[in-house]
């Protein structure tokens, strides 16, 4: 296997594990390459995916790359998901809402790790409906955004204040104690260390 192939293979693995858009600069450091060289590798890989009409695609945005599915296969994904729709996933928004209500302020990473599923869309929806809003930055590495409930949330559920939330046994020990640390350790398969990417977001 040539050096170029080796790098492309490694890039595929990294994209897969990382999930979110991955900066070419970060990869360049890992492989002792310049950023343009790395970008070239990513683009070659991208071309190969398209050429063989793979079910996966790499998308580029601002020298970041992300692995995703070929939109042509959306129908099948939809059909695969239909049976679960009734079973479980309708709970998603409520679940995320509950996690945010009881554990605020909370990061998206925590919500993901507690639910065991990525919650980007759910969170977006809650924000759009103004039930949830950003409420600062965590002091943890990468300074991730913290989310909390809004006055709209109280209104929607008829609470006067957050103290009105129904008490649930064990809530003290379970929720309030080790909360951040716990979820930090728990993303089952993969924990990303936010590199510069998230810092940059702070700077913006």
């Amino acid at each position: 296997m040539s050096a170029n192939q080796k790098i492309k293979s490694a890039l595929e693995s990294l994209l897969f594990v990382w999930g979110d858009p991955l900066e070419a600069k970060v990869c360049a450091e890992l492989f002792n390459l310049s950023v343009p060289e790395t970008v070239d590798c990513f683009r070659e890989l991208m071309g190969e995916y398209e050429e063989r009409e793979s079910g996966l695609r790499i998308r580029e945005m601002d020298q970041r790359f992300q692995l995703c599915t070929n939109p042509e296969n959306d129908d099948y994904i939809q059909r695969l998901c239909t049976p679960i729709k009734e079973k479980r996933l309708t709970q998603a928004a409520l679940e995320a809402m509950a996690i945010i209500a009881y554990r605020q302020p909370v990061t998206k990473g925590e919500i993901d790790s507690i639910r065991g599923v990525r919650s980007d869309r759910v969170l977006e929806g809650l924000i759009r409906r103004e039930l949830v809003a950003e409420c600062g930055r965590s002091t943890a590495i990468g300074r991730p955004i913290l989310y909390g409930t809004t006055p709209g949330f109280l209104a929607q559920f008829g609470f006067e204040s957050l103290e009105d939330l129904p008490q649930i046994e064990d809530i003290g020990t379970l929720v309030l104690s080790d909360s951040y640390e716990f979820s930090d350790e728990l993303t089952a398969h993969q924990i990303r260390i936010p590199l510069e990417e998230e810092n940059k977001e702070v700077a913006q």
Partner: protein
Amino acid sequence: MTYKVKLDVFEGPFDLLVYLIEHARMSIYDIRVSEITTQYLSYIRDMKRQDVTVAQEFMVLAAALIELKAKMLLPGSEEEEIPEGEEDPRSELVARLLEYKRFKEMAEFFAQQEEISTHIHTKPREDLDPYTGPEEELLRTDIEQFARAFRAFLFRKKKLEEIRQDYERVERQRMSIEHKIEQIRSFFRRKPKLRFSELIARESDRYDVVLTFVSVLELVKQAAVRVRQPKQFGDIEIVLKGDRSQGS
């Protein structure tokens, strides 16, 4: 001293016995019962002396060994069960030890397999909500449902906490000196003279800076580069020396 081992390393009496037999260079098919019984018992005495609770299982095997030793001393004494010269009184023990040993070896094989799988990573499920429709509608529901969702979450959290005991974090590898040196050499491929400031990325942390500095020192030691600092506290110039270092 025949067995100077940590007391708790044995998974059970068979584990200990197999160890003692192998350590005494005996064939498992031809156990010197008297010798091994002595060793086994003295090991158990050691456990007691060190206040290790001797599990019942260890005592049971001790009793079985003593019984076996007695049988070996009185050949043909129980003619009905062990016809003289036909069956070895040790054969039962041997069969059990062999069976145990075989699984112990399989356990080692499993450990190797497990090790391989630690280098394989999977990904969490994607957010399926775009495919499953707008469940936000549910948010119009009442407080009972909300509380129910939260209870479900608490349950999951408990479960996750249980699982947590079984997980460990694979540490992020920090860059090594070797890796950094490699990187510096690759910079030299583009130009023969570098500044120290060029070697460290803008957002480097202290670790990176120190690592880079130590790596440069290492290169100096290897006589691969020459360094110069024209001004006090100024930038350091690093010049690649001749062709010698190019090859590596």
